[in-house]
């Protein structure tokens, strides 16, 4: 839809927003740190200083890409789902069950089964708020938030009482997954795990889905103008449900990839907000899959930077939160972007 100059302006605007948010973060560091320069350098340079940190950035970007895609799909359909967190738990949980408790399958059957269980779990859990919104008009923001709690509490109960590894002590988890099923390193000696390939594949699939299939077209149309879509003969309720189902599937995939790549089994409360980070990613990415790729890498870089800063200076890593918040606000400001467009695009047109 956006071509040429408009696209470049949009990108330039986002770059400016990123720059402004970083600048505000630096100002906070300058004002509160006793060693501001080493803090800033630890924040900006250290994440790229060695291959281990770069691997960590890639590993952190993997779940962000998947949840970012999950949220982008619903946002493009005009559905304000905040449910990726809950869907991620359900997907991760079912996938782990398949991994731990289904014995004796060859890997090439078992691994697809695990992924399928996770995807299906997330998708079905997403179908609940989807149906509630599409057919009963129940506000999806609240239902998804409520369902997040329900998912986290239910899985927490199950992992603490039913599926708990007796050896895991106070910190509940399932028995460890067979190492042969885990996502290994892509290149030996480099810490990035194979989940990256899954995430990149998902970016490509979602891109194709949104921009090169009729489902994607309907989905975007419903998001842009539900009335028009309805009169155009699109079954809006079906599209709404479908968008959250796809979103849930991606969130479920995020959960199981994080488990197979990082945690080696299902752990109680393993996500700590990955689903909500997905919302930030989608906002930064303007709900575009390619944008999600870039935004996840940048966001992961910022997260690793926050950690290296905490280690290498007197600043706590929460400084990054200030940057993240301003980033979200600047990038989402329609007034700023309308101003940029008016200033640079309609300059040639005679605006009265």
């Amino acid at each position, binding site marked *: 839809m956006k071509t040429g100059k408009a696209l470049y302006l949009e990108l330039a605007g986002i770059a400016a927003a990123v720059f402004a948010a970083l600048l505000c973060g630096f100002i906070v560091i300058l004002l509160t740190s006793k060693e501001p320069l080493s803090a800033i350098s630890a924040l900006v340079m250290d994440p790229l200083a060695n291959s281990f940190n770069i691997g960590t950035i890639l590993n952190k970007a993997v779940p962000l890409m998947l949840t970012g895609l999950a949220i982008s799909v619903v946002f493009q359909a005009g559905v304000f789902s905040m449910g990726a967190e809950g869907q991620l738990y359900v997907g991760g949980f079912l996938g782990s069950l398949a991994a731990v408790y289904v014995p004796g399958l060859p890997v090439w059957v078992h691994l697809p089964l695990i992924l399928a269980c996770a995807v299906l779990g997330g998708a079905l859990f997403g179908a609940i708020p989807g149906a509630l919104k599409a057919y*009963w008009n129940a506000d999806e*923001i*609240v239902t998804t938030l409520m369902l997040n709690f*329900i998912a986290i509490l239910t899985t927490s109960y199950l992992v603490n009482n039913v599926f708990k590894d007796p050896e895991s002590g106070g910190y509940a988890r399932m028995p460890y997954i067979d190492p042969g099923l885990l996502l290994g390193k892509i290149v030996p000696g480099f810490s990035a795990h194979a989940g990256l390939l899954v995430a990149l594949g998902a970016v490509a699939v979602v891109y194709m889905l949104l921009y090169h299939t009729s489902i994607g077209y309907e989905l975007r149309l419903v998001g842009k103008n539900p009335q028009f879509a309805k009169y155009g003969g699109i079954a809006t309720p079906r599209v709404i449900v479908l968008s959250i189902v796809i979103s849930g599937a991606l969130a479920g995939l995020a959960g199981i990839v994080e488990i197979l790549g990082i945690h080696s089994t299902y752990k109680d409360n393993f996500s700590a907000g990955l689903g909500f980070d997905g919302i930030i990613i989608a906002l930064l990415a303007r709900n575009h899959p390619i944008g999600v790729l870039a935004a996840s890498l940048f966001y992961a870089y910022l997260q690793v930077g926050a950690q290296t800063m905490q280690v290498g200076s007197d600043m706590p890593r929460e400084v990054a*939160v200030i940057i993240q*918040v301003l980033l979200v606000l600047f990038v*989402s400001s329609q007034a700023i972007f*309308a101003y940029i467009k008016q200033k640079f695009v309609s300059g040639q047109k005679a605006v009265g």
Partner: protein
Amino acid sequence: MVVWQTIWSQIMDLTLIVVLLRFMTPILLTALGGLISDIGGVINIGLEGLMLLSAFTSIAVASGTDSWLLGVLAGVAASVLICYGMGFFAIRLKVDIIIAGFAVNIFGSGFTIFLMSKIYGLTGNYNPTGAPKIPLVDIPFVQDVPVLGKLLSGHSLMEWIAFLSVVFCIVLIYRTPYGVHLRAVGEAPQAARSLGIPVERVQYSALAWSGVFAGLAGAFLSNGLTNMFVKDMTAGTGFLALAVVLLGNRNPAGILIGSLIFGLASALTTIVQTIPGSPVPSQFIQMIPYVVTIAALVFFALRKKRRLEIAA
């Protein structure tokens, strides 16, 4: 069955009601704040973050100045200040109000940890010794009456403020010119503007009110219910409050009932958690409010649909 006996005995000696009142207070206050912003058409989902900011500010100031009142006021002021900032982004810079609220939540969680680390060098919780708490109200004579005493006397001042706030909100929303403006702006901002109502100013004030109430609730968490600040101590109360607004069908009396249900579930959860070997998992009791909220949402939506069908 140990559980039922314990719950029953706690009902009989009124402990359950005392605990219930204590737990419903922050939910009730925050939900009233959410209600005003909701009615003004500027839905504030940042209540969670506001509560955290207020909780930290109020205990820090209370322990620094040795005055609970200054603590509470500072907490409310911090919360209101952030609301104006949120308003600036949402109203002036046209950030979607949901996104602005979302940002406030991240900010509240992160910034309180940042401050705790920078000011006190602590990472998990801030537990000042001897910080003054919001006082309890002992009613003379009544406190000596057997049942009535326990029901009415000895509650935190903030619990009374919460109940009075329900009345205050009813008056504010339905009985004042401001309330008329508020509802007009929420229902039809364009029409309100054409009638000369200062729409932006009303929206800012609606957000500020939500900040006041979320601020009171946050101060109660750190300065009344407990005597410390723990990172992310709100643990979803702000989201519960959002749900209560809808559960209460967007009116103060309904919100009072909604808060009672949520408070009861929280109270039962704590009781069950303290009983070893309970047959009812605490997670499922904790879940009740969320399930009830979803059911209520569907119920209200269906009722609205039916009304529309009858009208058509």
